[in-house]
């Protein structure tokens, strides 16, 4: 069973947003890493890049397929998780612990449109 964590915001394309004060962390969910299988490459943006809500900001690749990363909310990238450059498999080990980008939210009201843990769990069970 895929793990879901309380207190995070979830998108239908299986990204999560963890808000901590003025910054937030975005990554893929445990359900997503399961579905992908062995992650072999993470395509990440650069610091200072800006993305609109639902815009693609990168990709996660398994042996067989590339899966686009879409920004659940509008963001400005502060930092990327450089550990994933050398060890993309960290996403398989713990997708929630290993965030992909640290961001500034440019429109916090967009969080309201995302799912909470309970809703996301139900969404995955469909």
């Amino acid at each position, binding site marked *: 069973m895929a793990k879901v964590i309380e207190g995070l915001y979830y998108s239908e394309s299986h990204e999560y947003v963890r808000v901590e004060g003025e910054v937030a962390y975005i990554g893929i969910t445990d359900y997503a890493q399961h579905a992908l299988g*062995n992650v*072999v*490459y993470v*395509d990440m943006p650069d610091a200072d890049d800006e993305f609109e809500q639902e815009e693609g900001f990168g990709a996660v690749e398994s*042996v*067989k397929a590339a899966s686009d990363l879409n920004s659940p909310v509008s963001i400005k990238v502060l930092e990327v998780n450089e550990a994933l450059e050398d060890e993309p498999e960290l996403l398989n080990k713990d997708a929630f612990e290993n965030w992909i980008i640290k961001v500034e939210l440019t429109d916090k009201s967009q969080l309201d449109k995302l799912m909470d843990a309970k809703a996301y769990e139900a969404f995955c069970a469909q």
Partner: protein
Amino acid sequence: MQNKTTCLYDKHVKLGALMSPFAGYEMPIQYTDITSEHNAVRHHCGVFDVSHMGEVIVSGHDAEKYVNHIFTNDFTGVPSGKVLYGMFCYPDGGVVDDTCISKLDTNLYLMTINASNIDKDVAWFEENAKGYDVVLCHKSEYYGQLAVQGPEAEEKVQELLGIKCDDLKFYEVKTVEKFDETIIISRTGYTGEDGFEIYGTHKFIVDCWDKLIAGGVTPCGLGCRDTLRFEAGLPLYGDELTDKISPVMAGLSMFAKFDKEEFIGKEALLKQKTEGVAQRLRGIELEGNAIPRHGYKILKDGKEVGEVTTGYRLISVDKSCAVALVDADIKLGDQVEVQIRKKIFPGTVIKKKFYETKYKK
């Protein structure tokens, strides 16, 4: 249209395989994960259900003459018990299909064809059989097929299936009488490792599968079949060979025998070989871990020069590599760029065999 299933469908489901449509069949992509199945074949032994592949038997007085007419390789003077790889080509040199043909006996040939091409191939065989005294027998529904691959394949086939195969050399084939049926076994495969392909009735194939799995052979899906064949530099019809990508463009003209009197496509291919082609397949090794996928653009000095046919983060070697169809002036050692989404990655043109194959010659 509902997808077909092979005789091993229930076995795949029971093993928890991820099933997916492929060439009109519900086929296993992976049982556990691509990487561990790939490594099982490289280091030990894996078994693939390849029952979706098509089989056509050619017999009759003109069988050899007919096979030599439709096939780029040459059976002239080749003894029974040999397998040849080659292509069926259109008159313009484009490829109908690539195939292994087994010479089972004088004027008795088994043509193994890609599942995705069965209907097209069979129609093409019949169309080109006019004037030849041959019988074409379409046996795809009759035969199931297993590929047992890896350095331990010989031992596993002999011990677990009781089929003697250490007498077969690479690309040799024989028939064996077993359980009141005639099965076919060849020392061939699509992985770059030693191994065997076995053809028989559905009942026989299911029985072999059970024995191999019980004996510790790893069940392997189509996912690692593709990573294995790609590392070994073997083409996949639809990616590296198509009706637009000829054997000469694919760098496979050694499988077209131009000293043969005639075969369909000979003139066009000979012209391509002597006058040159506009584009050809090259290997590219990427700098970085990004993965060049089918259809991604290849650039040189910012100008588009081709596109990727297949690419992977390799499993046996720590590299990202692609095979790409590029302009003919792109040579070995050249620096090119691969566009992956919004980023550009530098790469070097190399030979398109990325792994040292380990066949038992």
